[in-house]
């Protein structure tokens, strides 16, 4: 069992920031994995599997977030969330 934390930085590239619908897409993606997935902005840490928690980040366009994942499927989870932030969310919001 791996307790290693997989940590990456992501940038919010959606036009209006992490609004309700991008938040729900992130949560949907995170919920597919067994790992714990967290996103942090400054001092605010949100459970990426909770759409409500994600919204409390109040992350605007260009905000830098830290992604932290722990669990046995962490590498796959990191991969999926990064892909979401880099491609899917950007094209969906345009």
């Amino acid at each position, binding site marked *: 069992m791996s307790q290693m934390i997989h940590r990456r930085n992501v940038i919010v590239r959606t036009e209006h920031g992490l609004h*309700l*619908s991008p*938040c*729900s897409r992130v949560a*949907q993606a995170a919920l597919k994995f067994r790992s714990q997935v967290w996103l942090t902005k400054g001092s605010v840490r949100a459970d990426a599997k*909770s*759409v409500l928690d994600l*919204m409390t980040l*109040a992350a605007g366009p260009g905000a830098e977030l830290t992604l932290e994942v722990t669990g046995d499927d962490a590498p796959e989870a990191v991969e999926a969330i990064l892909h979401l932030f880099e491609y899917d969310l950007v094209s969906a919001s345009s």
Partner: protein
Amino acid sequence: MLVKHGIAVSPGVAIGQSMVLGAESFRIPQRFVSVSAVDAEINRFRISLQAVCTEIEENERVARERLGKQYAAIFTAHLMMVQDHRIVDEIELLVRQKCFSPEFAVSRVFRQYAKKFQNLGVPYLAERATDIFDLEKRVLRQLLGERREELRNIQAPVLILAHNLTPSETASLDKAYVLGFATEVGGTTSHTAILAGALELPAVVGVGNFLSDVAGADTVIIDGSHGAVIIDPDAETLARYRAVEQEHRNFSNRLESIRTLPSVTLDGVGISLYGNIEFPHEAASARQRGGEGIGLYRTEFLYLDASAEPTEEDHYRSYCEVLKAFPDRPVVIRTLDLGADKLPIGFRMEYPEGVNPALSLRSIRLSLQHLDLFRTQLRAIARAACHGDLRIMFPLISTLLELRQAKMILGDVLEDLEEQGIAYRRDIPVGMMMEVPSAAIMAEQFAREVDFFSIGTNDLIQYTLASDRGDPRIANLYRAGDPAIIRLIQIVVKAGQSRGIPVSVCGQMSSDPLFVPLLVGLGLRQLSVTPHLIPEIKELIRKLTISKAENLANRVLRMETANDVESFLRGEHRKLSPESPA
């Protein structure tokens, strides 16, 4: 614990569980469940949640088919919110560990999130609070099913917390179950506030936004004497307020003992105390509290409660009921004092855009343009006057012509009754409200044409200081202690004295113990007050002497600001009634 401040409109302390009224009214029937019921309750919550999810999925499908994918996304997000494991886990934890009822836990947790969103300082997210309230309602609706309760059939004691209560909603509150209320909007003299006084319910209005801070069934304290609303009080605060509540009860009991004593000053001058009432049945309570008659019977509620125009018989029955409580004492009936937008369907008119209703067609002006409505009321008054000392009072008179017109119509009505051979009283006394500055300034002239004046301080303040009584943002302008108001009262009292006609004050000012010594000092010998305050005002009068009151009035007349006047009067009041809880 959270303390919110608003405008104190009806004194007393109420402690109890909240019922939050939104667009839809839900009352949470119980806050706690027994330990043995926890599993069943959690199961009930899960079933309700599942039903809500099915409902939202259906909304999503319909939206996708009819409106397109981007609209359906809203419901996808709602579905994720309502299934959010943070919310679900927290609710289940509260039920399991604290034995909260699922309804109470749902309201609590959803509202915590709504609050969080409102406080993020991002307008978009603040608006999402609305989505959360919507979800809360969906879940509560499933949980409560047929047990949803409405304002009209509350079955257990609650404090009502609402954005606003309409006068008819306030009037329909059942005193057996409603302990008090607080609203986000409203001012001192809104009809809702006046009704709270009539119902003797502690009430605070104009609190500003606070409904998102409170969950249904939270413990709340409403301090109607100081204008405070305390949500989820700590043990110490709760104990302190329980003591205040008891003190109030003792104070009321003591006042009860002076009920049968006369209302005279220490130097033997009688000050007549009358009651202001909204509903006929209040006349009995005014009498029971030692009132010497009715100084103001507001007849608007005859119009507000009915969906159709009240008939002559409706009026007649109500007036006779009031006279039953006071068969041999003065009962002053004020004719219709409503805005055009509050009339029964069929007569109702909206004000054109840009027109200020307070300065437009209302009150006597409306009666003079709707002679059918006006004549119906006058006929009933003239007929009921056979059974006692009934008097007519016209509201909002601004000019002599208006008064003469109103009196002429009364003359016509009496003539008709004569011709029809219907019993009526010919020499019914006619008075007018002094509530428009133009009339107060011309009081000498008016005094020749009426039998009495009654000063309506609420409108007099509004019109003199040009400040809407319902707007908390300018509440600092709307002040009974303003020197301009005191001078206008002086003018009216002097005019009455010089023509030998009685003058009374029937606005909220005369119900405020602070102003009573001043009013007596200005020469008033009649006050008409909220019935439950009669004993307190009488106790105060019994401690006054006319010479002291006159000295006090002379000092006040030299003051320049409302602040000076009110702080001086507060000091004097403390000397007179050191033990009063107000």
